[in-house]
């Protein structure tokens, strides 16, 4: 229920952090999205010069045989640079575009043959969306869209009011859309995605153009909504790595129309760095005690450097598995040392992206 969601949102932060620490896989569920060898090509018209040379048309491959599976209840991320094929793939899954080959199923329904049924179960919100009827109020705009999905007007109005409260737009409910700022419009469009209570929701860069506070509301609400409705699925595309890392259960990285990797954020990072790395700030240990640390079972390598002001050492441990850190901490404290700080170092999602795609998203923007 949306009222429960409002209350749960206040507790969302703690729950989010707890969830992020958990790495155990969810039990296998029904597939919400199944994409099997989907391809999409375009015939590009050539100019007169090329035509004279005998070239009739060019074939552009936007997607070249993509396969993915998204389980019900997953918040699945799709990352990729501009032109990778993300939008093409989303358009196919949302019945806006027919694939040239392969099969795409959403909630067990073929997106081509059973398009109308698919549409009843999905919705989409695109980032930076300024669409809407300027002459209507926020509430009226959302009501109009609810009618296209067949919602009862009374139910729709109730859901609209609740959603507007969650995204902190309730004071603008009666304002004309033409008077809204970009961020307010985006929040309104975000509500449009949820008002129809979709089984599968496609969020295409939903926090684009939102300020930090509004973006946080959107992310928190998405997570809480999914927790409250475990049979709902979200497919998210984003350029914000931190967003993908914190929100998504699994991520697919796509480039040049192909999926390069698909796994949980932790596993993707582990691809680059198989063994956990911890940095520990310690005080109260002498040279011989430090030399004993590499001999702790499970420790692969230790490096140390003096902390500023000579107040101790910063030790970098590479260990075989995470539980080994417990033994390390125990040994340090047993030797009389005190732990000043403890931090796990792992590659970021951006590191994974660069490794797979060959360039970062920000570098791509700079090149342009």
């Amino acid at each position, binding site marked *: 229920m949306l009222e429960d969601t409002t209350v749960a949102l206040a507790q969302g932060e703690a729950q989010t952090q707890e969830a992020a620490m958990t790495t155990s896989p969810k039990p296998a569920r029904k597939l919400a999205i199944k994409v099997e060898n989907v391809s999409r090509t375009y015939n590009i018209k050539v100019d007169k010069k090329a035509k004279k040379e005998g070239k009739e048309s060019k074939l552009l491959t936007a997607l070249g045989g993509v396969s993915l599976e998204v389980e019900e209840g997953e918040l699945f991320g799709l990352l990729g640079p501009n032109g990778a094929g993300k939008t093409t793939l989303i358009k196919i899954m949302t019945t806006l575009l027919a694939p040239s080959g392969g099969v795409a199923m959403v909630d067990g329904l073929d997106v081509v043959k059973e398009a109308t049924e698919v549409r009843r179960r999905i919705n989409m919100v695109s980032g930076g969306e300024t669409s809407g009827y*300027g*002459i209507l109020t926020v509430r009226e705009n959302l009501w109009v869209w609810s009618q296209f999905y067949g919602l009862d007007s009374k139910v729709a109005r109730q859901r609209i009011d609740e959603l507007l409260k969650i995204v902190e737009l309730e004071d603008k409910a009666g304002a004309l*859309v*033409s008077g809204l700022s970009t961020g307010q419009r985006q929040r309104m469009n975000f509500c449009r995605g949820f008002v129809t209570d979709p089984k599968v929701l496609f969020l295409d860069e939903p926090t684009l153009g939102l300020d930090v506070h509004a973006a946080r509301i959107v992310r928190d609400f998405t997570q809480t909504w999914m927790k409250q409705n475990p049979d709902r699925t979200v497919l998210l595309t984003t350029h914000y790595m931190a967003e993908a890392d914190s929100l998504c259960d699994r991520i697919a990285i796509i480039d040049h129309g192909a999926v390069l990797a698909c796994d949980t954020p932790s596993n993707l990072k582990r691809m680059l760095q198989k063994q956990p790395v911890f940095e520990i700030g310690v005080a109260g240990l002498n040279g011989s005690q430090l030399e004993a640390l590499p001999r702790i079972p499970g420790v692969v390598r230790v490096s140390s450097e003096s902390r500023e002001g000579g107040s101790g050492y910063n030790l970098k441990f590479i260990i075989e598995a995470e539980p080994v850190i417990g033994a390390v901490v125990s040994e340090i404290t047993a030797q009389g040392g005190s732990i000043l700080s403890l931090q796990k170092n792992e590659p970021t999602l951006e590191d994974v992206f660069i490794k797979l795609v060959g360039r970062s998203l920000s570098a791509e923007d700079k090149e342009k």
Partner: protein
Amino acid sequence: MSAIIHDSPKKVAGDVAESLRTFKVASWLGWQIESNWADPFAFFVFSIMRPLGASLILVLIYGAVSGNNSQPEAFTYLYVSNAWFTLVVNTIVGLSWTIIDEREFYKMLKYVYTSPARIIPFLMGRGLAKIVIGMLTFVVLMGIGIIFFPMTLSWGAVQWGWLPLYFVLGMIMLVGLGLIMAAVSLRTARHGGSIGEIVAGLLLLFCGAYYPVDVLPDWIQKISLAVPVTYWLEGMRRATAGRVLAPVVKGHPSIMSQIGDLQLLSILVFCAVASLSFSIWFYKFVERTAKEAGVIDKVSNY
């Protein structure tokens, strides 16, 4: 006492070069926007369809009422006036619509304003494509009219001396009017069409485009005689036909027939100078108020 800063000749030359560059680039841009959606032939056909349609309305009205009682002189008046009037519409709309287009559709007006580009040369350049299309349209309309319809014109009667003079003065005057409409557009929301189209529609009633002003009630005649376009159309009709068209209306000499060529020229010179000077001042004034109100980049979204 504050210092008086005089622009150095070098700065003035730089400003002129900047304005010319802006005009040149804006002209290219205007042409691309007008024409790049179709091949040249299709573009040309579509460009003349509206004015051709407007001419056809007049031909059909004439056809409906003339029956066996043809009035070739009246028809010539109607047709020639309408052909020149397309230039009035294209010039005024060409400049005023640019503001709407750039602000509402392309959302680039704010970037033009934040760049070193000069706005008035930009507007003139952007509108140039429509003006050129208007000129080509006139040529096509006259060609069709002369070939297919009973007009009382001849090549020998054209006043080749007066024609370019009236034409240049008229274009200066019309560009001024277009700039005034562009200024008004800066402070108004988009309402279906543009303010330029609305004014062009009203001008149709007042300026003797379809009939001598004598046909109008007295109080409307006074308005007509205060509208500069009335005199320009008279000048273009005279220069095209080599005489005053419809010199007699309901048994009396028409008002325009009583204005000599030199007198007409003086009026047009005054209108051209006044129109351009006032329009530049007016545009700057309205622009200042628009900046104060923060509406330079405000989209109507209606």
